[in-house]
């Protein structure tokens, strides 16, 4: 059932984080986009903004609900996926690929170690329902 790439790390708020040579690419998981349903709007920060671990960095709106997006790590937002403004459906179609949201240059790289591994996230999903 689960589409949880092994090489990524995860949050309990259903964001994924990917190591890219010291920088961290961030998006929402397959499970998150499935629960949200059709994504209709994504609000992201501007490049240069500060992200703080566990605090909201943006908003995703679907036909069902509006949810905050939480940063997995603290740091500076160095890249933003502006394509999502015109094509929010990418988040549904390719959550781990073209549906990425921001790239963070982490200020406390060791926060990575506090994130869930793929197997921990899978276990978390199994425990919390649906």
């Amino acid at each position, binding site marked *: 059932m689960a589409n949880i790439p092994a090489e990524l790390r995860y949050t309990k708020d259903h964001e994924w984080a990917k190591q890219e040579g010291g920088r961290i690419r961030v998006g929402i998981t397959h499970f998150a986009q499935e629960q949200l349903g*059709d994504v*209709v*709007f994504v609000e992201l920060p501007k490049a240069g903004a500060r992200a703080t671990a566990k605090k909201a960095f943006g908003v995703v*709106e679907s*036909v*069902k*609900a*509006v949810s905050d997006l939480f940063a997995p790590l603290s740091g500076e937002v160095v890249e933003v996926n502006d394509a999502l403004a015109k094509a*929010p*459906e990418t988040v549904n179609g390719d959550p781990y690929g073209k549906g990425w949201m921001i790239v963070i240059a982490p200020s406390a790289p060791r926060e990575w170690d506090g994130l869930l591994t793929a197997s921990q996230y899978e276990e978390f999903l199994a425990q919390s*329902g*649906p």
Partner: protein
Amino acid sequence: MAMPRYDKLVFEIGAPGRVGYSLPASDVPVEDPRAGIPDSYLRREAPALPEVSEFDVVRHYSRLSQLNYGVDTHFYPLGSCTMKYNPKLNETMARLPGFARLHPLTPPASAQGALGLMHDLAQMLGEIAGMDAVSLQPAAGAQGELAGVLMIRAFHRANGEKRTKVLVPDSAHGTNPASTALAGYQVVQLKSLANGDVDLADLEAHLAPDVAAFMITQPNTLGLFEQRILEITDLCHARGVQVYMDGANLNAILGITRPGDLGFDVCHFNLHKTFTTPHGGGGPGAGPVGVKSHLEPFLPAPVVVRRGEAYALDWKRPKSIGKLQAFWGNFGMLVRAYTYIRTMGPDGLREVSENAVLNANYIMARLAKDYDVAAPGPCMHECVLSARKQKKLGVTAMDIAKRLLDLGFYAPSTYFPLIVEEALMIEPTETESKETLDAFCDAMIQIAREAEQSPAVIHEAPVTTSVRRLDQTRAAREPDLRWAPRR
């Protein structure tokens, strides 16, 4: 040629040059506008107004009016909205010329009847909710929330305290975090237990010295009475935290218990839910807010007061959060709510809640076999079902809602509360007969069977409505919000 259809705008019917008026020839000299108006204020071309005859207009709007869908035509079990019958006596009273034709700026000496009604309504609402003072100004529940949170802010400031956060559960109505943020507070979301109850240990952990208020709905949004409410309000008060009750679910507890007795400091009333004033287009709404005596100095000004035998508007309220609304609130709604309360009386209001709770439990009991119940009952005035069983068959809560339209019912609230998967939130109200409840349950059970045997009929729904299933995703992604003239 086909007749003009309802789905055209008035701009799109008619013909160039057609008019619905005939004016006599002017008997005064006609001035060229350019003679008296500066060039920069003159438009270059005529506005693209509709060009229609009187008959076009009458037919267009009569057709639109036939598409109205409301409590006067259909069962409307929209959870959290209390879509009950609005007695026509309310309308008669609101149309009495002494109320309907009264100018809001009439000097108080000449508006004693209206002021007396406002004074007495505030007193009655205070008695119903166990609150010491009530402001009738807020125009809707959300504005009542804003007024309540602003009063809490003013109270803490007056005590020299700096508190910056408000706690709101994840099961809350969306207006709670919105009004709180608008009042300048940081919203902290608390996780609820599976049955929608407050997690007391988690609440206690969050009750820091910078928390101004805790805002909850009672009964909660799963339609269950928060059993440990007295512990919750005590816990909050011990930390100097004010407790706000979202009054959206007041229809469950009229005459049975009172927010003030449960320890709440503030609560709002939705007159358009609990007290039979119209919703939506028939509105406007009205969201009076009640407070305990320690918050009374902060009420929105002016406050209607009684001085001897006369009523007056008291503006001398130095601690007031200020005026919230044009004139004195949505006065016509106040007349309707007053009429309702006086018609029902205290015993009648208690019966309202008893029957509202009975009706919701009847629906829950009849549907519990075919749908998952979000939390074990009995429930209060509404029940929350989950379509998770149907979702496994490829039928979502949204599909069920659409199919209900075909079967002649308005849909329940869907996907709320957010903590229930595939939520269907059903609030029948006390004004529906057993026959209507049975017909609705029969339709729901039929849909559960269709989900197992013939899901295509659900996926195609609705087919009997004036428009078929709308593409809500495209509507949200490419909103087309206004008509643009075709040049």
